[in-house]
């Protein structure tokens, strides 16, 4: 699954600490050429045969032109097999998503839109094999209140957000995802419940639900720390999360990952590949990847990070075909640690099969079925280990970060 990264934004959002750049004029032709070149180089290095999904993240990739998206997809299809039903997601910002523009993206090959506040670090990921339901995500104004949007430093208004979602659903019915944010400074339980209702009226079949995290170095975090904005109390945040889970499940959504809900099977194939520790290839400034460099004859999974700063990244791509800034070989233990930490975020957890793929010698049962932390956590009702594998209970999922240190510690001692 390649994840091409468009690092530019029109404006800096107050809560975002991604690798984003606001520049007066982007040399799109040069950027396009470099994304294409890097995608080709890395796909060749990975020797991936088939690509399951492509995810255009950012920055604000919807600011790029559909031609750029098309060029990258062509490059992917040229370097590996890209099935017609492969999931191709574009993150979109409500203010840059007119219907005609969205139609342009669809024509370029995008089949899922993710709209929202929540524009993530862009990563192209190449997941090998087994294409699943192609899911197109996106769209959403998660926040449907102008005051909230202003606090978040978002450029769009609630009306624009609503329009964008409607446009996306019209173009790609069933393949639009929206982001919902809760835990905004000053947000009450009631305000959240209303917001949730409104979102249900607007949404398609996929919702990403995020508690607002105050990332260091962001304007919002500074305001909260400085006392201009209140810190939401822990218990209120827990209530909001539980309310949302309950309401969404009642509305027919499957809570398939800590922050993700889907109905009618509209899970994000691309994101699932992260949580299942599949291979993914990061393309673009600051993108991260995890894959095996079969092209170099390697058999071990590497963690790779591309150069952060766009101009420097472009220079490297132009001179050597890719702008990989760091590559670290992951040890078998490190791979298992990632599998554990990511896999337990999903409702299916870590299956015996998947665990066995990374740990052919030592089964899940051998590591966590013996007396120790995992058994204690099972007895306390946070965790389940059965024929399906290792996974969190409904209650356990909400406190996963308190379970992981114990489990990792147990794993390290094996």
């Amino acid at each position, binding site marked *: 699954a390649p994840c091409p990264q468009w690092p530019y934004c029109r404006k800096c959002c107050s809560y975002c600490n991604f690798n984003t750049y606001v520049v007066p004029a982007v040399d799109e032709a040069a950027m396009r050429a470099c994304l294409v070149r890097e995608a080709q180089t890395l796909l060749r290095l990975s020797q991936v045969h088939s690509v399951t999904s492509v995810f255009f993240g950012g920055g604000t990739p919807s600011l790029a032109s559909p031609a750029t998206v098309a060029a990258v997809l062509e490059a992917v299809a040229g370097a590996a097999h890209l099935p017609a039903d492969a999931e191709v997601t574009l993150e979109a910002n409500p203010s840059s998503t007119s219907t005609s523009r969205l139609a342009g993206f669809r024509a370029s090959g995008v089949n899922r839109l993710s709209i929202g506040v929540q524009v993530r670090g862009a*990563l192209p990921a190449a997941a090998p094999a087994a294409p699943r339901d192609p899911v197109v995500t996106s769209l959403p104004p998660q926040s449907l209140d102008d005051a909230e949007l202003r606090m978040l430093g978002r450029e769009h208004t609630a009306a624009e957000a609503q329009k964008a979602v409607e446009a996306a659903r019209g173009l790609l019915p069933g393949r639009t995802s929206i982001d919902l944010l809760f835990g905004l400074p000053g947000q009450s339980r009631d305000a959240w419940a209303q917001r949730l209702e409104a979102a249900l009226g607007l949404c398609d079949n996929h919702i990403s639900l995020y508690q607002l995290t105050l990332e260091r170095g962001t304007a919002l975090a500074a305001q909260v720390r400085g006392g201009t904005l209140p810190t939401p109390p*822990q*218990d209120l945040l827990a209530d909001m999360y539980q309310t949302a889970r309950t309401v969404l499940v009642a509305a027919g959504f499957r809570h398939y990952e800590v922050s993700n809900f889907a109905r009618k099977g509209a899970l994000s194939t691309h994101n699932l590949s992260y949580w299942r520790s599949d291979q993914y290839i990061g393309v673009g400034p600051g993108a*991260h990847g995890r894959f095996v460099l079969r092209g170099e004859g390697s058999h071990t999974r590497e963690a790779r990070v591309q150069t952060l700063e766009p101009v420097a990244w472009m220079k490297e791509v132009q001179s050597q075909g890719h702008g990989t800034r760091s590559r670290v070989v992951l040890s078998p233990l*490190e791979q298992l640690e*990632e599998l554990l*930490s990511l896999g337990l975020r999903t409702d299916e957890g870590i299956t015996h099969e998947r665990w066995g793929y990374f740990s052919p010698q030592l089964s899940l049962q051998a590591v966590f079925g013996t007396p120790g932390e995992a058994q204690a956590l099972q007895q306390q009702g946070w965790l389940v280990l059965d024929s399906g594998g290792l996974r969190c209970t409904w209650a356990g999922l909400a406190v996963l*970060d308190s379970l992981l240190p*114990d489990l990792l*510690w147990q794993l390290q001692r094996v």
Partner: protein
Amino acid sequence: MALAGRAALRWGARLPSPGPAAAPLCRPAWLPAACERPYSSRDEEKVDMSTYPVESIRNFSIIAHVDHGKSTLADRLLEITGTISKTNLNKQVLDKLQVERERGITVKAQSASLFYSHEGINYLLNLIDTPGHVDFSYEVSRSLSACQGVILVVDANEGIQAQTVANFYLAFEAQLSIIPVINKIDLKNADPERVEKQIEKLFDIPTHECIRISAKQGTNVEKVLQKVIEKIPPPQCNTADPLKALVFDSTFDHYRGVVANIALFGGEIAKGQKIVSAHTKKRYEVNEVGILTPNEQPTHKLYAGQVGYLIAGMKEVTEAQIGDTLFLYKQPVEPLPGFKSVKPMVFAGMYPIDQTEYNNLKSALERLTLNDSSVTVHRDSSLALGAGWRLGFLGLLHMEVFNQRLEQEYNMSVILTAPTVPYKAVLSSAKLIKEYGKDQITIINPAQFPDKLSVSEYLEPTVLGTIVTPQEYIGKIITLCQDRRAVQKDMLYIDENRVMLKYLFPLNEIVVDFYDALKSLSSGYASFDYEDAGYQSADLIKMDILLNGNPVEELATIIHNDKAYAAGKLLCERLKETIPRQLFEIAIQAAIGKKIIARETLKAYRKNVVAKCYGGDITRRMKLLKRQAEGKKLMRKIGNVEVPRDAFIRVLKRGTDK
């Protein structure tokens, strides 16, 4: 020790052993004519001290409140007498430790022999520097025991301060001649007249006896030297008598072992002599004697009345106990009075941050205590903190300085537990009396606190505190003292707007933060000093802290009954802030026996999961998780509650009362 290095450049190399190559450099410019002889062998490079009979010797100290200019005056005296050359680099030449220069205090007394010609006579003036803080009053008194007089320095602007009073009485009680000096007369706000009147009122010294100087600019410093010669009597002793040498300080040199600072009260001492310690009865052969200028300068001999150093194959500083008397083998003498073992006032646990550092810390402690014999060391261990030590210090500053020296000179970071004072219990239980072999025990660790049923009385150490303050702060200071259970003993106006207060304090009430509180409520103007005032009966109890009903051994505190509720409440509140939330609710309680006196509840985590986790930078997140996993083995488990090891320290560090 950057400055020691600089000083060494000016004075010539400070060598582990005197070598011929260094000799021409080592010979200081001041060396008087009598000593100047052609050198033919290494031996003859040494100074001949026989030309300084008792009558031409003066032994003195400079005493002052902190920052009143003691070290600057010492610098000027060293310059005038040619002991060191005049340069503006001479700043606190005798304060060799980094911590001394940083904090502007003298921790380790240093000495220097000055040669000065006055009215045709060559004098040998031995300046015996003293530590400059209340914690070190014992060191001051032992330095004074080698002197016949003192220069009492008072700041012309600040006037008499608490420590001035304390130091004056130490000198006065030792019956030393006192030369009052008013320093910093060059300052704009200097008011020497007012200070002279204070000195007259408080110390009964006529105003005309005060010398007004500026040590910084050198004004009238020569006059001080002349007064030293005129007013301070020479030591009363005789070279014809058998050797009688007082050990008044000691340092440790990695190459040569213990270097003992000695004052000769009779006889003479030279290389090759066999000597005996009156305290340990151990016998040694003298390897080297010499004077301090202020670096070690070997001499042929030292004679009665003189002050210098001695190296005699002692391996540990405990062999050169302060106050000990040395005499010649088979010529025993009556030991000099004043020997007493050091009495620590403050105890604290010290533990390596990581147990793998235990041996390194052990060796650093051993080496540092070689140079600071006033620290007592007992091995100790704690369930939470592992193996460590219980250390006794002269006071809180001493503890801080010791810790700072460990960090600066040995690069060791340690965990220090909350300081506690040495309580006592008078036992009534026959069983316990038999067990301890005595009916009164000292408790330096709350874990050893005996139950009330087997005790007839608890005792707590007290100190007599002196506070000097501008009068506008009196109200607040009196309230502060009452809050600390102090009893007023005296209140005296030392001039129109300055007041001296005397209070009897329970020691534990001032140990942690009294000085800071006093400074902050008086905008820094009030000064404080204290002296040991024995023990008093006290209503003491042991307070336990419980987590979900299980006691936390290291948080047990001995506390006065009246203070238990407030302290217990505060500890619980702080623990609540310090212990991380867990998957279940935690009751944090303070208890006296079975009675719960305070409670806080730490609620369970209901949500703790990071919202966004995709293919971005999970490396950072994995690092955090692995650090937390790693931290699991450093967790102290109390029942099922996991507490980070440093949580208790963080709670305790801020003191147990406000």
